[in-house]
């Protein structure tokens, strides 16, 4: 009898994704669903999808989902978490949603140290609207609104969310990962699991930034897009843990109880 080693996680519905071929959103959806399955929190998880490519995420996750206004995912998640503190609340956002229109909500949710988890997809362009420049677009990167490459005088510099948030006292766990190879996908899954565990233990704000390939808007093949993350994007956005206060927050909580 053959043993099944890999199949669709239970927290994902049996539906084909609407994402482009080779998109990192689909991989991240699967990782989040696998983590929800492994932690056994499918019945108590509430997700907050963004506006952006992942706007239809509620069609795929088999958990409760509540759509947020554009950029207001962390604010919506804050409300849900404060009203229902025993639920696990995650906000799933892209770079246009979190770093552009929603930077205020994200920044202040992080600064308050809200006990929520944010999954942040960074693909350096606005995917859904056709590949315009995003705050995370790198200098000299060509997009439909910067055909000659991003110019630092006109458009400023790429926003580095993990680095910025790591300066705040509020957040507990911040990590940047990518999903461009089997090894990095496994690493990304570990990071997402740790972020959810951080929330389950009541330790505070956790954010996982995922460098995600966008072959359609980068005008590359999927395989070349994965390579481009390694060669170009991860130089500008270095991978790694930017803040991990989990042990420090845990100790006083244990001593108090």
């Amino acid at each position: 009898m053959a043993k099944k080693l890999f199949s669709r996680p239970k927290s994902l519905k049996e539906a084909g994704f609407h994402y482009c071929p080779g998109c990192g959103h689909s991989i991240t959806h699967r990782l989040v669903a696998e983590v929800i399955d492994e932690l056994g929190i499918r019945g108590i998880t509430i997700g907050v999808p963004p506006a952006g490519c992942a706007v239809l995420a509620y069609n795929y996750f088999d958990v409760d989902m509540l759509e947020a206004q554009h950029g207001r995912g962390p604010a919506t998640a804050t409300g849900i978490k404060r009203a229902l503190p025993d639920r696990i609340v995650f906000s799933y956002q892209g770079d246009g949603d979190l770093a552009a229109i929603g930077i205020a909500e994200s920044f202040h949710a992080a600064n308050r140290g809200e006990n929520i988890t944010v999954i942040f997809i960074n693909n350096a362009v606005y995917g859904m609207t056709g590949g315009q420049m995003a705050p995370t677009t790198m200098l000299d990167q060509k997009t439909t609104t910067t055909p000659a490459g991003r110019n630092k005088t006109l458009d400023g510099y790429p926003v580095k969310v993990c680095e910025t948030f790591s300066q705040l006292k509020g957040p507990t766990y911040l990590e940047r990962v990518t999903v461009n190879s089997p090894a990095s996908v496994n690493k990304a899954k570990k990071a997402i699991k740790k972020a959810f565990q951080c929330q389950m233990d009541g330790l505070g704000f956790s954010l996982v930034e995922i460098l995600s390939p966008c072959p359609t808007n980068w005008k590359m093949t999927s395989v070349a897009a994965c390579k481009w993350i390694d060669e170009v994007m991860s130089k500008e956005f270095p991978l790694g843990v930017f803040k991990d206060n989990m042990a420090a927050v845990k100790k006083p909580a244990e001593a108090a109880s």
Partner: protein
Amino acid sequence: MKGYIKINKDFCKECHLCISACPKGCIIPTKEYNSHGYHPVATDEGKECTGCTLCAIMCPEIAIEVYRD
């Protein structure tokens, strides 16, 4: 045969990430069409699959299921 994979041809979007992930070269492109107009990948019966799951880990569409005897 140590392992084998089942490909859901209607979910495959021809991104070929599985082909670059497979260390044994067991997955090959095809010229047939699925219902969405993509050319789904197929397994090369001549090569030996070890059931390492790397293709399924990379597949964005979860079109691959992996089995091992």
